């Protein structure tokens, strides 16, 4: 989230698209309800009428996977009716930057596509340079970002939005009017989403299109505004921050790639440079300090100036190593073993039958989990003959989070330390102790037997009281980092250096555990709002700690104009104190003593432009989001029939053949969670199994009538990849959409059940149906949109 949970209460309009927070985030949803009680309007855009829609002012029934068309339509409405926040757009975005003349967009394709590779070269999406080598700025230039944007989205008319999304024009325009009003400086909209946006082959661009709308409306940086991703588990935010994905290092630093021999090579390819002379470019300018401090944290004294701070020790993967690729390697016989930690591979999918085959191709599988999972017991899946599976499976009983202390990082980036509630049961051991023990034994083997390039393993720092049983408190201090000359823990990442005199395990967490102690433990909250909430805007700066630097609202300098005047004086979180010559209120997302004025530096200090980006080359599938159909769709792309799908989508070998067509699978399947369960783990919790005992699919009433299906009947839902045989729930909450004269139906498929848990043996895995394709940038699978058939059994 750019903002935070409590901040949602300040919104005038809550736009929820690609999320169902009343069901998936019921606790945080209290802030949406608070906003509503304060008089905000709530708009829910979703294929299903959910428990979120039930308390909304407006529900727009849309077709899954068409978010770019919806947001594109809104941008077109806002631009063509001049409803955008002009002052904000001209100061805080790159609207006036001029794009160089290579740019083109024809019939669904941007310039720079290499058809043989199936990839774009994003470096061709660039700004025209001025005489000083910086980006040329001229708002009225025909190739200014704003003019290209207008042209690009002029095709997204209300008629086109209806043809693609199925939302009737009149309803779309009703919402567009509500959204358009949020471009007024004294109004604010929050855009709230979850995995309903990410689980698409156009996931990144969908979110980007929502973020661009927010930039046009001047709603980023303002309380009650922002782009707010609701994370699906209590610590998923911490998970990504600490790089539990392959393509980044902790703190969202890029993973090095082959050919980068020095830190300078790495920085050249990774760190942004100033596109404009007045850009602060804080991230780009400090990238070197962050990577060197990380190397010092990992390799300690072995990282020296002479050996490039052990840059050679970092892996430089030549290919994609994402989640799906991992299983591809196993299927190709290139992987012997796999360790799963907190990951129910089989249930999580996609195409769980393929994943079961991949797990069956391993020699061994080790699973660290507090409870049995479908990953650990994949050999018991329906339709699997256990005798055919030769994989040796080890269950390592890990502690549950109630059995250990540590931190959770919530969607609002707030790092909250929690205590151990009960001691570990039986032989259960912490995941990080398993990892430390494994590492210790491997290191001993390397020390005894040598090997190819043992250096990174030999030299890794394990500066804990007991290196085989590190405490999470020690790890938190290590993540925070130190000044090696004084030995003291640092208070800010601004103090990190690139000369090897500082350490930091994750620069965005530097300052959370200074010499004063672990700030994530702080609990100065609503027991005394007068003291604990100085701005009166619910920031509670001494409640735990928020990355970065305890800043509660990102880009907060953009809530004021260049002269330091509040865009919305009744919702102020930051102001310039002319006496102290400092920004006060929230921790400023800006140099703290940099004054406002006619020549104030632009407010997005992390980008090379200094502005929010309406045009970018930081994504692989186009500088502007464009609508493409999901890989399996019953509809032809109305904008460009010859370019049906995202051209930059990566297709694994043989996957094309596993995709079905509407002739065989005429309905759209979409998967989701229900309130009553938490992913797959609560199949072990009796009271929750009572609330939701059995797998089902939701079937539109009109379609059910056609097929003679009633609530409670057993049905078979199949895709080209697999099937589930479960109960039907017939409802008008799912309804037909009229798309180009055809009635299109969605089948709703909750994911929670498997063949492990209290009701063992009965249940099928929803992800048996989902396709093995993912977003062009992240390879997050397309769980939200695929083709199925349904029959009564």
């Amino acid at each position: 989230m750019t903002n935070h949970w409590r901040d949602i209460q300040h919104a005038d309009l809550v736009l929820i698209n690609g999320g169902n927070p009343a069901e998936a985030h019921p606790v945080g949803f209290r802030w949406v309800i608070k906003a509503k009680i304060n008089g905000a309007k709530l708009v829910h855009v979703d294929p299903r009428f959910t428990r979120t829609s039930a308390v909304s002012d407006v529900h727009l029934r849309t077709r899954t996977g068409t978010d770019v068309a919806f947001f594109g339509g809104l941008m077109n409405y806002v631009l063509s009716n001049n409803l955008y926040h002009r002052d904000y757009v001209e100061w805080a975005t790159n609207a006036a930057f001029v794009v160089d003349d290579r740019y083109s967009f024809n019939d669904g394709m941007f310039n720079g596509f290499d058809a043989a590779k199936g990839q774009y070269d994003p470096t061709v999406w660039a700004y025209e340079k001025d005489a000083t080598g910086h980006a040329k700025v001229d708002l009225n230039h025909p190739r200014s970002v704003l003019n290209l944007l207008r042209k690009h989205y002029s095709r997204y008319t209300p008629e086109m939005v209806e043809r693609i999304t199925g939302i009737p024009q009149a309803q779309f325009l009703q919402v567009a009017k509500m959204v358009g009003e949020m471009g007024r400086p004294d109004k604010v909209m929050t855009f709230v989403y979850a995995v309903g946006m990410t689980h698409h082959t156009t996931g990144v661009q969908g979110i980007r299109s929502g973020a661009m709308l927010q930039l046009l409306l001047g709603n980023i940086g303002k309380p009650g505004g922002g782009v707010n991703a609701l994370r699906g588990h209590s610590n998923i935010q911490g998970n990504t921050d600490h790089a539990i994905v392959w393509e980044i290092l902790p703190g969202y630093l890029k993973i090095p790639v082959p050919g980068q021999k020095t830190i300078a090579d790495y920085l050249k390819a990774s760190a942004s440079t100033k596109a404009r002379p007045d850009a602060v470019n804080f991230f780009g300018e400090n990238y070197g300090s962050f990577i060197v401090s990380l190397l010092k944290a990992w390799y300690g004294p072995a990282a020296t100036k002479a050996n490039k701070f052990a840059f050679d020790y970092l892996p430089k993967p030549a290919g994609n190593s994402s989640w799906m690729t991992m299983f591809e390697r196993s299927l190709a016989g290139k992987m012997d073993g796999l360790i799963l930690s907190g990951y129910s591979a089989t249930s999580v999918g996609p195409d769980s039958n393929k994943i079961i085959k991949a797990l069956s191709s391993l020699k061994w599988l080790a699973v660290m989990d507090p409870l049995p999972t479908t990953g650990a017991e994949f050999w018991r899946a329906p339709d699997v003959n256990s005798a055919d599976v030769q994989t040796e499976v080890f269950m390592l009983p890990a502690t549950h989070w109630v059995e250990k202390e540590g931190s959770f990082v919530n969607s609002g980036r707030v790092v909250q330390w929690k205590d151990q509630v009960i001691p570990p049961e039986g032989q259960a051991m912490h995941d990080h102790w398993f990892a430390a023990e494994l590492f210790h034994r491997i290191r001993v083997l390397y020390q005894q037997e040598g090997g190819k390039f043992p250096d990174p393993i030999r030299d890794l720092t394990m500066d804990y009281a007991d290196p085989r049983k590190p405490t999470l408190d020690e790890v938190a201090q290590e993540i925070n980092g130190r000044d090696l000359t004084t030995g003291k823990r640092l208070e800010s990442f601004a103090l990190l250096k690139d000369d090897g005199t500082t350490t930091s395990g994750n620069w965005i967490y530097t300052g959370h555990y200074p010499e004063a102690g672990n700030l994530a433990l702080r609990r100065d909250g609503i027991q005394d709002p007068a003291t604990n909430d100085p701005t009166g805007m619910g920031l509670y700066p001494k409640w735990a700690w928020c990355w970065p630097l305890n800043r509660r609202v990102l880009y907060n300098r953009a809530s004021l104009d260049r002269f330091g005047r509040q865009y919305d004086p009744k919702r102020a979180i930051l102001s310039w104190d002319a006496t102290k010559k400092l920004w006060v209120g929230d921790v400023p997302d800006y140099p703290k003593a940099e004054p406002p004025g006619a020549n104030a530096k632009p407010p997005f200090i992390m980008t090379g432009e200094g502005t929010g980006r309406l045009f970018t080359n930081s994504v692989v599938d186009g500088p502007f989001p464009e609508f493409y159909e999901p890989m399996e769709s019953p509809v032809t792309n109305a904008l460009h029939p010859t370019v049906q799908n995202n051209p930059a989508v990566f297709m694994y070998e043989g996957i094309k053949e596993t995709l079905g067509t509407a002739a065989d699978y005429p309905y759209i399947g979409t998967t989701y969670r229900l309130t009553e369960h938490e992913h797959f783990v609560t199949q072990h919790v009796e009271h929750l199994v009572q609330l939701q005992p059995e797998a089902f699919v939701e079937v539109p009433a009109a379609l059910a009538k056609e097929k003679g299906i009633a609530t409670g009947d057993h049905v078979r839902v199949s895709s080209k990849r697999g099937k589930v045989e479960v109960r039907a729930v017939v409802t008008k909450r799912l309804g037909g959409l009229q798309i180009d004269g055809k009635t299109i139906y969605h089948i709703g498929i909750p994911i929670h059940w498997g063949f492990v848990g209290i009701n063992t043996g009965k249940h099928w895995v929803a992800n048996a149906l989902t396709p093995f394709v993912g977003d062009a940038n992240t390879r997050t699978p397309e769980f939200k949109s695929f083709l199925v058939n349904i029959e009564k059994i």
Partner: protein
Amino acid sequence: MEITPGRSYGFFTDTSVCIGCKACEVACKTWNELPGPEPTFGDGYDNTGELGAQNWRHVQFHDNVKDDTLEAGMGTAWLMMSDVCKHCKNASCMEVCPTGALMRTEFDTVYVQPDVCNGCRNCTSACPYHVIQMDETNKVAQKCTLCYDRLQGSLEPACAKTCPTDSINFGPVDELREMAKQRVETLHSQGVTQAYLYGADDSIYGGLNAFFLLMDKPEVYKLPNQESSVLPSRNDAGGYLGSFGAAVAGIFAAVMALRLRRPREPEPATAAEPPAPTTTDEGGK
């Protein structure tokens, strides 16, 4: 939170902000150590079914979603309501209990003393809300205690404590009534004119300590409406007379209805129609 014996306590359940999460059901079962019934598939969203000896909170779902693409939910298309014992001022369960197991506590709530209950089941048939039921394991009547044990320790009831959207509010009844009145005013000013209070005054069984803000007619939530909610009472002559009068009127109306229907009876199509409303539906109690 200070909870003072001698004051009336209860719940204000605001269904306009209920999101059907059922955290109240789970918190209730967890605190009160109710194992709950065998897991059974209901209709996908409501698998609890009804209030009972093992379900002291039950979230009702009423799906009125229309055929066409839907414009406005406004809290009426899919109703959710966390139902609970109403802790009636004129509590029929107390009236019929022969052993005095059902008592009114110092917090003005209705409580079953399990060690006094003889399992006669009078209360289970008397309760107009079908709240109180026999527990088949220990053979005593059970229902919401309004967390009597928590109140004694100045803790709010588990359901109210856990409710994420503050749909369930706990407090002194007079304060809750004031809060509820303001909430209705706010909703009306926001254009949600269908919102109203049920049981917040003495018109329903003399007043409900657990009252509701509803978004549709009481009958939709399986609640008796104002006309039906008069309790025959030992110490309430008005109640007897009222119900006698209602019964007479009901019988009269039923006879009239039958007479009126008679000419249409031969038509087979009428069998499929819903029964014509008569006063017996409302005045029979």
